[in-house]
């Protein structure tokens, strides 16, 4: 079992004018593993996904992909490097070009990266379709002829076309009906197992993240507040926000009414000290004045909360 790190980001930040969308995000993903970013709207998880691929230029921080610093690449080199990192988007209706047939859509990535002869490219396209369980007849059809789930399969096939080492999936199933969600999630896991692809998986749905991911980062207002292996996050959440998220999820209430109070603050006005303090049921004075740092809780789990002072695992 190799533990080679495919992606490692450190101190990643992004500001849009006065809005600090992503602040000091660091994590790394070993080969073949899935790292999940979970959070509510405004948590910066989708921006992080785009920063990792440099679809959005980071304001600060480093992105090390396959041992190379992406943040320092020229645009030409970056474009060539895209062959090894692909993305799956949330909206299966918007992410495909309506005027390109499935054949063209699947050939396109090979074409722009100069992979194979036209005949080989077509063969690959056929193989990709089969991999995502679509009939060969789909090749000459256009996106509008497919349902949402089918389109998302095509988008997945496109992401696989260059045989990438890493796939970033931004809410890939949240636009789909539950029964179709299950099909796509199964497919993604199968393909990952088969190809050994490393994955960054973004979702607001805790159930989906738990199903898909090996390691999870919980984001709140542009920061990772807690991260660790899946079982630790779900079994022994350390940060009050993680705890609240788990309790709030439907099907988990069971009479508990320990709800978070208040609204998510705007990214224009991030609270001082701990960003979560305005909604935290356990906030105290120190949270207002001092920003908590990430503390190692052992077993790969880390969280940023003053309550964890002294709770450092032996």
């Amino acid at each position, binding site marked *: 079992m190799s533990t080679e790190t495919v992606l490692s980001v450190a101190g990643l930040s992004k500001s849009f004018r006065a809005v600090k969308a992503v602040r000091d995000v660091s994590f790394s993903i070993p080969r073949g593993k899935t790292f999940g970013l979970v959070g509510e709207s405004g948590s910066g998880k989708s921006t992080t996904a785009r920063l990792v691929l440099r*679809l959005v230029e980071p304001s600060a921080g480093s992105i090390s992909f396959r041992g190379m610093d992406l943040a320092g690449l020229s645009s030409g080199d970056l*474009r060539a490097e895209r*062959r090894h990192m692909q993305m799956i988007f949330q909206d299966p209706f918007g992410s495909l070009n309506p005027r390109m047939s499935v054949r063209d859509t699947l050939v396109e990535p090979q074409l*722009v990266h100069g992979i194979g002869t036209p005949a080989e490219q077509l063969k690959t396209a056929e193989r990709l379709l089969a991999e995502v369980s679509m009939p060969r007849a789909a090749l000459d059809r256009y996106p509008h002829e497919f349902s949402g789930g089918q389109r998302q399969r095509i988008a997945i096939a496109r992401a696989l076309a260059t045989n990438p080492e890493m796939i970033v999936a931004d809410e890939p199933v949240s636009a789909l009906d539950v029964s179709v969600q299950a099909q796509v999630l199964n497919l993604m896991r199968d393909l990952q197992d088969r190809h050994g692809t490393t994955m960054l998986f973004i979702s607001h749905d805790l159930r989906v993240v738990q199903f898909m991911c090996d390691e999870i980062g919980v984001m709140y207002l542009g920061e990772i507040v807690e991260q660790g292996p899946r079982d630790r996050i779900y079994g022994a959440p350390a940060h009050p926000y993680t705890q609240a998220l788990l309790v709030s999820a439907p099907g988990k209430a069971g009479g508990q009414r320990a709800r978070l109070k208040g609204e998510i603050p705007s990214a224009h006005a991030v609270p001082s000290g701990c960003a979560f303090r305005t909604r935290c049921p356990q906030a105290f004075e120190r949270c207002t004045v001092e920003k908590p740092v990430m503390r190692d809780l052992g077993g790969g789990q880390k969280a940023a909360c003053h309550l964890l002072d002294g709770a450092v695992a032996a």
Partner: protein
Amino acid sequence: MTLTQATSPDRLPGGDEEAFVTTNKTVWQRLLANPTAMASIVMLAILTLSAVLAPLLAPGNPLRVSPADRFIPPGAEHFFGTDNLGRDMFKMVLHGGRTSLFVGLVVTAISMSIAVVLGAISGFYRQVDVVLMRLVDGLMAFPGIVLATAAAGIMGPSMTTVITSLSIVLIAPSLRVVRGQVLVIRELQMIEAARAVGVPTLRLFTRYILPAVSSPILVQASFIFSAAVLGEAGLSFIGVGIGPKELSWGNALTEARNYIAQAPWIVLFPGLALMLTILALNLLGDSLRDILDPRLARRR
């Protein structure tokens, strides 16, 4: 890695033929099924044919003066009557159409081509956009008639003059439409997806953005065409368009207004021809918009 054919268990029992969503009709089928579109196309075809075939349908010099035949009302001899100089109005209308349609076509081609290039650039480069859009604002505020008059003064009234000034005036509205569309398309997820795949910028233009803006461009082109026809007639009417020696529907009306009481038909027929042309182009634009943009179509 081995890439064997996947036999996914997520397959329908009894075959892999998942039902596709019903195929939409093609644009051509929808065009044929749209009565307004067909009517406008037929109208345009007739107008174009009669202009092209004018020398055959109404042979002879339309500008030939025949003082003996002044003010003859419409009849079997002269379908549309004759004017104050005894010229046959039928001939004038047919031959005048050549000017109108030619000017319209050339102006549309010039202004739309420039608008597409500039619009694409403007939609993609913010700095250029800021400058260009302020220029367009200014151009829209500039009275086109002053430009045309000045141009007529500089270059003398001629077909080239009219085409030049109309093209300049009509670039601004076309550019706005194209740029607006590019801005909308640029924000679509398919563009981000293409960038994520690694598609280079030029290819992004040609394969993703241009095809997407082609429909609105086509619609806009038919409206620009009608604006150009109208513009030519208007300029010629006040004498700063195509020269007085040339034939145009606008020219024909300049003199006609002095004889409106005696011979209303000289006013009627060139204007009617002009209006039908503009109407056909507007209807074509409307129905193209309905056909190409299904979201708007359900309204009409």
